[in-house]
């Protein structure tokens, strides 16, 4: 067997450096260099380590057990990071293949720091690479690190520091000579890269860590840039985000698989249902040229929570807004998963949205209840779209606030006389600064509204951020529920601590499709509808539920 030199970029990790530790990568034995260990799992997750929860989840022994990865998964895929798997990277068949992958990564690393290939994020990435003081302040802000019981591989700095060492060694001039002394070393081999790729998907990209950094280093961005490198250079991405997400959306029209005919059929059905539920004839306009508003939903709402697009139609119609949906492929689905992993896919979807709006000649695009669609189309697209494609775009939250706070509709807040708390989607709030409009609505319409602690721009991610909410392969759901969603669940339970038990029905308002899916899943996992009477839903459902001219009982208190 050919032994590679330790610092060679082509080292493939075939050399066994002793029995791999079997415990978690915790405490004194934790070393960043161990990411290159040729064999063994880097860290373990364990129920005993998890952050304690309030009632009714304050019995750690009742915590569901972790489902182990299947033998087939362990044999087929690279799974040497922790006890779960998102990427499903097939194991290379030969050392030669491993070397090629390492070489490709190095090509990608160079592109990541070139202005031609990465003008989009070169400045923030370079500054984050070169100026971290490693003070670990960011770790304390990370819900994943905290909820896992401070598992060291989940520190926001862990993946960043590994990339930083590779950057200094392979990108900066003279790195091969001085980098080890100045910045520490990591051996670049295939096991390290396989772990690093997987580790880039142990972050929700909520950027709460970046908010606390005294220097302005952004570990969330670094996680995203790592995902991007693996996607755009090595073609490594999750099936959920890429094949069944962005690609399907661009080929068929929606990541749900709905083509224009199917989406129109579904909306027709929703209109009928809304007409019956509200007592008002509802008719969703399609492709209305010159409308004031092109509304773009997350198409997942149409499939999973039809009452949400239905409620939008009820409100906009009742308020007399000139609006339309587009039946142009892609334009009826606000999803843009490229935001989480790939600039190319991000740009393609953004352009499609803008082209549809331009074709209809609408005055503005309004984005429905989808946090990442907000961020992608309003903020990110602002530096992608130019000329005629730069059509004004705004959040549905502001339009809804204007409608609710004006006298255009009559409301009866007593219809919402149940405990309500509001989840702040990171993309909408911390990353866009849309904080108050949704609160003003809830304060006006929900007499028993209470905030989570903390909230607003200091909120915690739902745990489904960066697309995790649609990831359920292997046993990843266990990780998503027990670790990434744990802090949000703790917040929800604390917000309803004054009304325990299943008798009092409670409502978590999550004005984001991805967050709503994650909150549904964690409530379901811990049976909190049955045990604690907690239901979830969007903002427009609360608005319609309080509309005096609509038949009472729009919100149905049953699990879905």
């Amino acid at each position: 067997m050919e032994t590679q030199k330790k610092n060679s970029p082509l080292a493939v990790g075939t050399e066994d450096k002793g029995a791999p530790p079997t415990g978690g990568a915790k405490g004194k034995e934790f070393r960043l260099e161990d990411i290159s260990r040729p064999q063994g799992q880097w860290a373990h997750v364990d129920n005993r380590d998890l952050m304690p929860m309030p009632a009714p989840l304050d019995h750690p022994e009742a915590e569901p057990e972790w489902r182990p990865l299947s033998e087939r998964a362990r044999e087929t895929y690279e799974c040497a990071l922790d006890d779960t798997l998102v990427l499903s990277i097939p194991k290379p068949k030969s050392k030669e293949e491993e070397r090629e992958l390492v070489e490709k990564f190095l090509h990608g690393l160079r592109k990541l720091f070139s202005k031609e290939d990465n003008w989009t994020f070169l400045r923030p990435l370079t500054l984050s690479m070169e100026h971290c003081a490693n003070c670990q302040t960011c770790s304390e802000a990370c819900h994943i690190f905290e909820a896992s019981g401070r598992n060291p591989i989940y520190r926001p700095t862990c993946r960043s520091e590994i990339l930083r060492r590779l950057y200094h060694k392979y990108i900066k001039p003279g790195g091969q000579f001085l980098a080890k002394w100045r910045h520490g070393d990591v051996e670049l081999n295939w096991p390290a890269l396989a772990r690093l790729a997987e580790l880039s998907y142990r972050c929700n990209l909520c950027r709460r860590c970046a908010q606390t950094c005294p220097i302005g280093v952004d570990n969330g961005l670094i996680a995203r840039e790592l995902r991007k490198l693996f996607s755009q250079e090595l073609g490594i991405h999750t099936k959920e985000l890429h094949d069944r997400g962005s690609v399907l959306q661009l080929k068929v029209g929606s990541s749900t698989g709905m083509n224009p005919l199917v989406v129109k059929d579904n909306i027709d059905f929703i209109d009928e249902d809304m007409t019956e539920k509200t007592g008002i004839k509802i008719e969703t306009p399609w492709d209305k040229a010159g409308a004031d508003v092109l509304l773009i939903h997350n198409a997942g709402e149409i499939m999973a929570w039809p009452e949400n697009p239905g409620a939008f139609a009820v409100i906009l119609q009742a308020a007399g807004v000139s609006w339309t949906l587009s039946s142009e492929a892609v334009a009826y689905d606000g999803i843009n998963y490229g935001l989480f992993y790939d600039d190319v896919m991000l740009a393609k979807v953004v352009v499609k949205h803008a082209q549809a709006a331009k074709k209809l000649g609408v005055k503005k695009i309004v984005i429905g209840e989808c946090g990442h669609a907000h961020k992608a189309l309003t903020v990110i697209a602002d530096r992608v779209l130019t000329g005629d494609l730069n059509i004004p775009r705004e959040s549905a939250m502001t339009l809804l606030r204007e409608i609710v706070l004006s006298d255009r509709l009559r409301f009866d807040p007593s219809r919402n006389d149940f405990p309500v708390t509001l989840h702040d989607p990171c993309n909408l709030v911390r990353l866009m600064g849309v904080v108050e409009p949704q609160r003003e609505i809830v304060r006006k319409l929900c007499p028993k509204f209470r905030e989570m602690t903390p909230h607003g721009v200091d909120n915690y991610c739902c745990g489904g951020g960066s697309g995790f909410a649609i990831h359920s392969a292997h046993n990843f759901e266990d990780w998503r529920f027990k670790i990434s969603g744990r802090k949000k669940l703790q917040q929800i339970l604390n917000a309803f601590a004054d009304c325990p038990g299943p008798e009092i029905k409670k409502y978590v308002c999550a004005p984001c499709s991805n967050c709503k899916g994650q909150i549904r899943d964690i409530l379901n996992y811990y049976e909190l509808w049955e045990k604690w009477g907690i239901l979830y839903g969007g903002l427009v459902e609360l608005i319609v539920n309080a509309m005096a001219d609509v038949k009472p009982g729009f919100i149905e208190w049953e699990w879905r």
Partner: protein
Amino acid sequence: MPGILHCVVYACAAVFVAAVGWRFYKIQTLPIHLRWELYPVPTEGKRAEHGGSRLEEVDWWTKAHRPDWLRELRFMFSEMILIKALFEHNRKLWRWSFPFHFGLYLTAGWGALLVLGALLELGGLKVGAGAGGLGAALSGLTVAVGVCGMALGIVGGLGLLRARLTDEDMKPYTNFSHYFNLLFIAGALALTLAAWAAADRDFSLFRRWAASALSLNLSAHAGSRWVSGSILVLALLAAYVPLTHMSHFFVKWFTWHRIRWDDEPNVKGGRIEIMIQKALQYPVSWSAEHVNADGKKTWADIATEEMK
């Protein structure tokens, strides 16, 4: 060998200016990046109190927006001087980091006061404890600022060193350069403080040497090995800092003002649109199949290409 010290200090000053200038230029000339702001953004004015943005308004693009620079300055001041983010999110480390940084600011202030005193002396005004009036006041202020700054810097530096040696969270992320940097800074400050205690209680020797350096009088002596030694080490430190990650003392302006708080919208025909149009013409060479790049197609080509 008085001329050698002068030459080393001039060289170190040149390295400092060149390194800061080069780094500033490199960052400044990087292409425009996609918006990646993080709220609260202080220039949003009153809305910044709840972390809000102009995007909270209906038809926000039709509303006049006046950035609240005063609020940003206030925010920056408390962040740079008091290290507010660390105070709020990592109090344990702030206890050492604040005296360390504040000590360095005071030490820099001490240097500025020395230069000011040297310029006044070159202009004919006597500066020193026995000079009376403005000269005595300046001398007293220089001593107070210098001694406090160096003492705080040493205490903070040693505290940070201890944290890096003992804190289980920080240890895996600490490498030789962290220790070296802290020891270098604390050592330089300690040497200067020792020079003050042993040989130059009103910093008149430092001031006189500064005057000689400003007037290009290369034959002047420092008057004490303590003084010449500390001038040498301080000069080397000044040259070293901007070559390291410690250049965050000015890079922070970019990471906060130009990235975290950059919410400037792209207006049709505006300067941002021109920069975006230029960036969209960069060729793409990413290799993954779905990108479909060939090194010639531009970002604009790729973004508008149909998915196959």
